[in-house]
C-alpha cells in the first residue's frame, strides 16, 4: 500500500478561534449517524458556523477572503473530547491539509496523523503572528515544512514542533501504520498465546 510522503503543505490559512476546541464542536454528534466517512465533507465546525435556521454566524471559515484555505490556525488543546475520527475526517474532507495549534488532544492528534493530516504545535506568540498576518492579508500563502519544522510566508518564518515519530511516519509515507503492524505476525502470536484473553470458560 504505497502512501504519499507528506513533507510540506502550502496554501492559505484560516483561524479557528477558541481554546479547548472539542470534537463535538468540530463535528456535532448528529453527523455521526453514518456508516461511511463519505458524507462528512462540509460538516466541519457546523454549529460554530451556522445558526439553527441555517444562517451564517460569520465564522472565519465562511468568510470569502478565507475561501480555499488549507491550513487551520487553532488554539490550545485542539480536538479534545470525544475520540471520533469523524472530526479529522470532516476537516480533511473539507479541504484542510494541516492544522497548526498551541497543543493537541492526544487522540485527535493520533487520528489526524494516522490519516495523513499533519498537526503541528506553535507557541502562542507564533500563532498570534500567523493569525495577525492572515487577518491583514488573507491571501498570504503559507508553507508548512515538516523537514525544517517551520511555518513560513514571504514576511516571516515561524518555528513549529511535532514529536519525531509521527513526523517521520508522515515524511516517509508510513503514516498509515497498518502496513508496519502486519510485519511481525510471529511476535504478535507469541504474545497472544501468552497474554490472557477474557473468556467464560
Amino acid at each position, binding site marked *: 500500500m504505497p502512501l504519499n510522503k507528506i513533507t510540506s503543505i502550502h496554501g492559505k490559512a484560516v483561524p479557528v478561534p477558541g481554546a479547548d476546541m*472539542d470534537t463535538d464542536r468540530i463535528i456535532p454528534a448528529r453527523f455521526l449517524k453514518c456508516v461511511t466517512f463519505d458524507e462528512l465533507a462540509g460538516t466541519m465546525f457546523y454549529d460554530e458556523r451556522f445558526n*439553527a435556521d441555517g444562517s451564517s454566524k460569520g465564522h472565519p471559515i465562511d468568510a470569502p477572503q478565507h475561501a480555499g484555505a488549507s491550513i487551520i490556525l487553532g488554539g490550545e488543546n485542539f480536538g479534545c473530547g470525544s475520540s471520533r475520527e469523524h472530526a*479529522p475526517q470532516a476537516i480533511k474532507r473539507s479541504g484542510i491539509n494541516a492544522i497548526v495549534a498551541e497543543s493537541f488532544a*492526544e487522540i485527535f492528534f493520533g487520528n489526524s496523523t494516522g490519516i495523513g493530516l499533519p498537526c503541528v504545535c506553535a507557541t502562542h506568540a507564533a500563532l498570534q503572528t500567523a493569525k495577525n498576518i492572515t487577518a491583514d492579508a488573507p491571501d498570504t500563502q503559507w508553507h508548512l515544512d515538516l523537514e525544517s519544522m517551520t511555518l513560513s510566508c514571504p514576511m516571516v518564518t515561524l518555528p513549529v514542533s511535532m514529536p519525531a515519530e509521527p513526523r517521520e511516519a508522515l515524511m*516517509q509515507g*508510513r503514516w498509515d501504520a497498518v502496513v508496519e503492524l*502486519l510485519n511481525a505476525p510471529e511476535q504478535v502470536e507469541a504474545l497472544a498465546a501468552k497474554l490472557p484473553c477474557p473468556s467464560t470458560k
Partner: protein
Amino acid sequence: MGKTLYKKVWDAHTVGTLPDGRTQLFIATHFVHEVTSPQAFAMLRDLNLPVLHPERTFATVDHIIPTDNQAEPLADPRAQTMLNALRENTAANGIRMFDLPSGYQGIVHSIGPELGITQPGMTIVCGDSHTATHGAMGSIAMGIGTTQVRDVLATQTLAMLPLKVRNVRVEGTLRPGVTAKDVALYIIGKLGADGGLGYAYEFGGSAIDNMDMDGRLTLCNLAIEGAARCGYVNPDETTFDYLRNRPYAPKGAAWDEAVARWKSFASDADAEYDDVVTFSAEDIEPTVTWGISPDMSIGINGCIPHPEDATDNETRKARITALEYMKLRPGQPLKGLPVNVVFIGSCTNGRISDFRAVAPLLRGHKVAAGVKALAVPGSQETARQCEEEGIADVFRQAGFEWRLPGCSMCLAMNPDKLQGDQICASTSNRNFKGRQGSPTGRTLLMSPLMAAAAAVTGTVADPREVFEIR
C-alpha cells in the same frame, strides 16, 4: 527505582519497535460499538484482511439506541442501519456481540467491567474516548480512532507512543455527600481541561484506596476530560472482590493464579513518576460545572468566577465565551438556578452504585413540577438489579422516567435531547456546546446526589441540605 503499573503493562504488551520509532503494542481486549466501527470494518474489507483475533473483541450497541422504545425497526432509519451494520460485521467476523436480546447489552464502559471482561494488567482499547473508564480495574485503557480500530481488528496491535505518568493523589476522607464525581470534577478544575496532555493519570492516596469500584470507574472515566488519555487505579482487594464470580473472570485454580499475576502489575512502592500532585479529600465540596469545558466548575456554595480575575488572557476569553453561551453572570451563585431537565445515567454515573446511592434519598420526594427527569441504567444487568432491589420503582414513584439502557442524553445520537436553551442537571461527562443535542442547550455536570437534589427542588441545590446528608 521501581516501575509504575503503566510501564509494567506497556512492557508486557510490547511487540517491538516500528521503523518510525513508535511501539507496536499488543491489545489484550478490544471493545467496539456501532458509531466508530462500521468504517473500520469497511476498511478491512477494502484491504482484504480478516479479523486476526475475534475472541479478543467484544461488541455492543449503546450510542444510537433509543431508551424509550427499542422495538425494531427503530424510528430513526439511520440508527437501524448502524445497528444492522454492527450485527452484520460482528457475525461475519465471529465477534461476540451483546445485542439487545442478549440480556447484557449496555454502554460499552458499563458492560466491560460488569461482565468481568475488563481485567487488571490488560491493554484495553475502544473507539471511544471514555475507554479510560476501564483503567479503574488496573489496566491501560484508552480511546482510539476508527483507523486504529481497523488496526486492532487486523493486527491486534497499535502503533503507540508511551505517555508520561502523573501520580494524582487524594489523601484523607471524603466528606458526607461528596462522591467520586465531585473528586473528578475537582481534580479537572485544579489541573485544567488540558492539564493531562501527554500524561496517564495514576489515581492513588487514601481517599482512592477507600473508594469502591464503581467510584473508581467514575473517576477514571473522567480522566480524559482532564486530557489524560488514560487514568488508572492500582488493583487491590477492592478490585479482586469486584471481579470475583463475574461471567468472564477466571474461575477455580485460574482465579488464584490470575490474582497473583494482577497484583504483580501494581505500581511499586518506589515507582518513579514524571509528576506527582496531591489533593486533600477534605477540601472537596459537591462540585458543579458552570461553563462549556469540564474544568469550569465551582463548589456548590461558590460563585461563578469573573473573567477579569483570570490569570491569563486565554482563560479570560474562554470564561467570557462560556458565560455568553450559558447565559450566566460572573459572581452569580449556581445554587438556586432553575433547571429544566435532570439526567442520571451515562458511562460516568449509570452504574448500580449510583442508583443505590440515590434511591433512598428519593423516598418521600417528588420531581419538581415542570422538570423532566430521566434515569437511565448503564446496562441491562444494572437495570435488572435495579428492578430486583426495588430501586427502579423508587425512581418511578418519585416521578422519574425510568428508561432502557443506553448512552441516552449524554450525547445527541438518540432521541433523548435537550430542546432550545434548556438547562440540564446532568451526571454525564461533557458540558461542551451543543453536547446534549440542542445547539444552544446548557449542561451542568454534577454527581447523581446533586442531580437528585436538582430533580426534587427544580434548582441547582446542595444534596447535603436537601437530603440531610451528614
